[in-house]
């Protein structure tokens, strides 16, 4: 088989899981519609046919039950991947996530490990309303004991999933629905990438400079990487050279790469599809300012959902989500250029 294939994120994830299941009999998958249907966003497609229903288990609609079962299985020596269909549904199973999965390594003084992956779909932009469109990055990144990853493309998705499965701590693996490459939902072209056949890991806590630049640093992740790159391309025509950083993982957070970049550019725009207040955007700003406030030559800017539920109405939803135009306008703002108000 050749490695010149261009694979979608959903196929990268299911391939990563399949390869780890072949290599390690302790790895199994459960969740709603993950077996026969292959996952409503395609992340477990093909697994049932290869591994059978003992290792690829459809569950009842009871996140409280099956996420709790996942924690128990992980503490008993298995390596479960449990899908929470939409991250928005975390409310009914949060005790299992933040009091059990996140804390049991600590509570047991390290005697127990919780090698569990909670795989979940995030993001909006396709009119699915407020309880199916959130990213909730910061909600999970805020809680000690969880690692949190959110890839922007197929290559990173495969490598981060393999790292997540092999990790002895619980990992929340957040894939953005709009990056999956599904036939029924538009996806940015760059989300699908060349995908090596072999298993490989992408380490946690290493951000990637996806576009080097000297005038301004744009820090983001997941879907917004593509919006930021689009903005950077538009800004290039105006003679503005933007550096774009894809964080790839929220926990651990690669503050060093961000700080080094801002030390070079002196200007910072942070873009997140999560809510604005008490979130990732503020965390990034704080990380830079705590290191050295003198790095910043201009006031930094934050773009995120302005503390409202994600609207169902298409024009209203598009208005609250950051996009290439609003990102470009924020960049111009840090440079003291006109036309900031898009």
């Amino acid at each position: 088989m050749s490695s010149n294939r261009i694979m979608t994120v959903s196929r990268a994830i299911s391939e990563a899981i399949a390869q780890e299941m072949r290599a390690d009999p302790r790895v199994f998958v459960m969740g709603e519609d993950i077996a026969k249907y292959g996952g409503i966003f395609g992340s477990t497609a093909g697994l049932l046919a290869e591994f059978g229903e003992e290792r690829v288990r459809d569950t009842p609609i009871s996140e409280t039950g099956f996420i709790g079962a996942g924690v128990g299985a992980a503490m008993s020596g298995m390596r479960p991947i449990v899908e929470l269909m939409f991250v928005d549904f975390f409310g009914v199973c949060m005790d299992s996530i933040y009091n059990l999965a996140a804390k049991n390594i600590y509570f047991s003084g390290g005697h127990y490990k919780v090698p569990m992956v909670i795989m979940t779909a995030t993001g909006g932009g396709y009119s699915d309303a407020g309880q199916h469109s959130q990213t909730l990055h910061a909600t999970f990144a805020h809680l000690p004991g969880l690692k949190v990853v959110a890839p922007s493309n197929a290559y990173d998705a495969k490598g981060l999933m393999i790292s997540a499965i092999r990790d002895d701590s619980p990992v929340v693996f957040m894939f953005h629905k709009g990056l999956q490459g599904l036939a029924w939902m538009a996806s940015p072209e760059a989300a699908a990438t060349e995908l090596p056949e072999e298993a490989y890991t992408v380490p946690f806590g290493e951000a990637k400079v996806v576009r080097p630049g000297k005038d301004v640093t744009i820090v983001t992740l997941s879907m917004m990487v593509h919006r930021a790159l689009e903005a950077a391309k538009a800004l290039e025509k105006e003679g503005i050279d933007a550096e774009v950083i894809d964080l790839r993982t929220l926990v651990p957070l690669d503050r060093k790469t961000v700080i080094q970049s801002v030390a070079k550019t002196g200007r910072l725009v942070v873009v997140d599809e999560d809510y604005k207040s008490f979130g990732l955007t503020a965390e990034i700003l704080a990380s830079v300012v705590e290191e050295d406030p003198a790095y910043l030559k201009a006031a930094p800017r934050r773009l995120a959902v302005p503390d409202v539920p994600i609207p169902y109405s298409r024009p209203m939803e598009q208005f609250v989500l950051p996009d290439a135009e609003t990102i470009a306008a924020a960049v111009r703002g840090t440079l003291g250029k006109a036309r900031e108000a898009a």
Partner: protein
Amino acid sequence: MATEITLAPDLWDATVNPEGIVANWFFQEGASVGKGATVAEIMVEKTTIDIVAPAAGRLHISVAKDGVVKPGAVIGTIEEG
């Protein structure tokens, strides 16, 4: 010699869903592909069907991503040799 990538006439029930679309190509135009490699996926309603290369060689895409197809359609060719 060129081998056509043809959708099987009974790939899906066209009396229920007359048309599908080419959802994704997994190789670029002109890429070299192995026989049996998954080269494309077709979507009918919300179901996707993998299409594999009938031969090894150089891929030529004739129905681009998002193109509408019916059972029996030729979506590309593979130039062997």
